[in-house]
């Protein structure tokens, strides 16, 4: 029993002492799954962490949830992609210093056979209307993410309120939804970055529509407003914003490739 007691004492002391070992300065970043899952943050963050002697805690969730973390003051800075929600976040006083970081685009994926015959239509809204008309299975993120937000805008533009057994709200991340759509031979809206990471060996869905200005997918970085949440590390958040929108961060983003393909694009002068 003595061993047991010593073990218990050790574990309790350890549980109490362990957090102290992590007492370095931490910057909390809530972001979308696309930036984390693509591997970009793994190369983008270390130089920043080294220069400012800090750890960046990445909490990768959908855009909707990331902004909620910011509203509650649970993080210091957010990196998201849903322009309308971002503007609302800033207008309501939750965030300050919003900056454009990078962009890519959304694409509509579907099975090679293209049962709804949408290849060649003129707009994304028409493509979705075609899917609805054929009642071809469509998988929606259904999770308030940036991609879900964009999908809603597109349905609105098509004048259709999607409903029925063909319209599936998965409530999961981009990767899961691509896998589900692949298994069910369904259409879905995806960001190009995640699709590029999956197309080699995880999905045989093909791009059935892309290249419309309305499918532009810009990423923005916003500091949580220190006036509303005095405890946030605003100074470090500002440094972070300056870093990823500055020459060093932008260069890393531009040079970042998955399987030889660029995933995120930076704004050049006069974009």
């Amino acid at each position, binding site marked *: 029993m003595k061993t047991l007691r010593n073990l218990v004492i050790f574990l309790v002391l350890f549980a109490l002492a362990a957090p102290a070992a992590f007492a370095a300065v931490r910057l909390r970043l809530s972001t979308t*799954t696309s930036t984390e899952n693509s591997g970009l943050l793994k190369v983008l963050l270390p130089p920043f962490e080294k220069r400012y002697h800090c750890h960046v805690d990445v909490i*990768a969730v959908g855009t909707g949830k990331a902004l909620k973390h910011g509203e509650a003051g649970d993080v210091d800075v957010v990196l998201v992609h849903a322009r309308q929600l971002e503007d609302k976040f800033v207008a309501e006083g939750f965030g300050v210093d919003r900056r454009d970081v990078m962009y890519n685009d959304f694409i509509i994926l579907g099975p090679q056979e293209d049962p709804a015959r949408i290849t060649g239509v003129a707009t994304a809204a028409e493509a979705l209307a075609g899917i609805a008309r054929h009642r071809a299975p469509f998988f929606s993120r259904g999770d308030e993410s940036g991609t879900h937000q964009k999908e809603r805008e597109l349905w609105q533009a098509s004048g259709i309120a999607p409903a029925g057994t063909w319209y599936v709200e998965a409530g999961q991340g981009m*990767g*899961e939804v691509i896998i589900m759509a692949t298994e069910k031979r369904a259409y879905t809206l995806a960001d190009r970055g995640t699709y590029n990471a999956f197309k080699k060996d995880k999905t045989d869905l093909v791009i059935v529509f892309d290249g419309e200005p309305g499918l532009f997918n810009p990423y923005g970085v916003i500091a949580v407003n220190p006036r509303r949440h005095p*405890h946030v590390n605003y100074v470090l958040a500002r440094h972070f914003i300056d870093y990823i929108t500055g020459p060093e961060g932008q260069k890393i983003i531009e040079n970042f490739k998955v399987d030889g393909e660029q995933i995120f694009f930076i704004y050049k002068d006069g974009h």
Partner: protein
Amino acid sequence: MDFFVVSLQAAFQLLLSLDAEVLTAVWTSLYTSAAAIVLAAGIGVPVGTALGMGRFPGRRAALTFLNTLMALPTVVVGLILYGFFSRQGPLGTWGLLFTPLAMIAGQMVLAIPIVANYTVAAVAGADPRILTTALTLGAGPLRAAWQLLLEVRFGVMAAVVAGFGRVIAEVGVAMMLGGNIRGYTRTMTTAIALETSKGEFAFGLALGLVLMAVALVVNFFLNLLQQR
């Protein structure tokens, strides 16, 4: 079949190569679960002993309540504590959200009902003469309870092992309260969830096998301890 073969190979490679990221996740899983189960035992064992020994009004209701708590979904525990730990919540100023301490708190809440329930069963199943004998020999109620616990220590150990199994295997609390932060609050289970979301099924399963290997080692040592 390819899927399982690839997973198995990946699991062995992970174990042999001592991949730093995997080791960190294993370590995070281990120390948060260990701390949580120690704290849960500190509360659950006395509560279970009192409920198992005592005859007092409300005991039945308390037992039913405790049994119901066993069914607490991990995500619900996560949500409740999230409400407390968020900056908007009553304990917000402590800044605990997205730290290992928050995970430990959540896992402790998950484990307490299990530890308490198993302890109740062990204590209630003990020879009733132990208690009366200890009391007639002049022991106070606390001393008598301690004697009883020593007698049923195997059952209590089972309670702790069951609680440990639940907390090291759960993903809801760790994900919600820890945030799955790489190198800080990423546990084995949240890493598996992440790899699955990335479509890396084989790697996810490999991590699952590593987790099972770790659990095997832990249980082996607990077993040794029990036999002493």
